[in-house]
């Protein structure tokens, strides 16, 4: 028995449930695309196509949010793996880092609080990738450590280790700012 707006090939997913988490999923997609808005929109669209076609089938083993975050993560990973292999030759000759985060120019970033926020976010971006991801998922996207670990494709134990190390590193760095 399907809900009224449940997807044909994914009966456990409803359009309204996806709409409710759309903003948070987009934030995650944006982060996966180095804050490139167009690339993130494209990634979101691709994730929705996967859900519509039933290629990514939700079976209620986790929350829908965790599942959709995982779909975005996997799509981004496969997309950037292909892109990275194409860019490897270019990278050999260029010193610029492919994974360098894009500068965010937001209004209000020039104030003292804004500068402090920029500095904190820079510290977050400088964390090792897994620590950065788990911090973002737990602190900014409101997932539990277990759910964040599932999205990242690591065990809860490994996720917790990354989480604790990230917190320790950030406390030190933010302490230096004060």
């Amino acid at each position, binding site marked *: 028995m399907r809900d009224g707006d449940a997807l044909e090939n994914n009966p456990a997913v409803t359009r309204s449930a996806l*709409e409710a988490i759309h903003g948070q999923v*987009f*934030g995650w997609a944006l982060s996966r695309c180095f804050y490139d808005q167009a690339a993130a*929109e494209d990634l979101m*669209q691709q994730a*929705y196509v996967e859900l519509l076609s039933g290629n990514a089938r939700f079976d209620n083993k986790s929350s829908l949010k965790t599942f959709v975050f995982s779909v975005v993560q996997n799509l981004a990973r496969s997309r950037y793996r292909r892109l990275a292999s194409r860019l490897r030759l270019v990278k050999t000759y260029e010193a610029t880092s492919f994974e360098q985060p894009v500068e965010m120019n*937001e209004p209000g970033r020039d104030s003292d609080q804004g500068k402090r926020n920029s500095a904190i*976010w820079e510290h977050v971006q400088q964390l090792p990738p897994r620590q950065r991801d788990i911090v973002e998922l737990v602190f900014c996207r409101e997932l539990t450590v277990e759910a964040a670990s599932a999205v990242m494709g690591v065990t809860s134990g490994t996720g917790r280790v990354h989480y604790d190390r990230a917190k320790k590193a*950030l*406390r030190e760095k933010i302490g230096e700012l004060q």
Partner: protein
Amino acid sequence: MNDQDLASAVNHSAPEVTAPAFDKVWANAEMSYLQSRRRYAWLASAAATAAAVVIVLNIGTPPSDNIKFVELAELMESTSWIAPSDSLLPEHQIDLYQDLPTLIESTEPAEGALL
């Protein structure tokens, strides 16, 4: 700094995200999905049509009358084998058959000992 303060500090430092309208992204996704479905349907129907044409052509064509059967006699004449030693027979036939060497029985005693 406790976990809650740290989470709050990091959360506030994160760049603000303005998500595109859900309806727009969803509509694009649906269109993309329908297009890919149509493409696959077209490919499948083209493959099915090609297969049907091949089958019809095969069924429609009568079998050829020029069927060749293998004749046993012809087959037997097409091959032969001779033993390598047969080349000796014309010259040494008598020697070969008449002067067969006699072998000493190995079980008979000779001067008290078995050979």
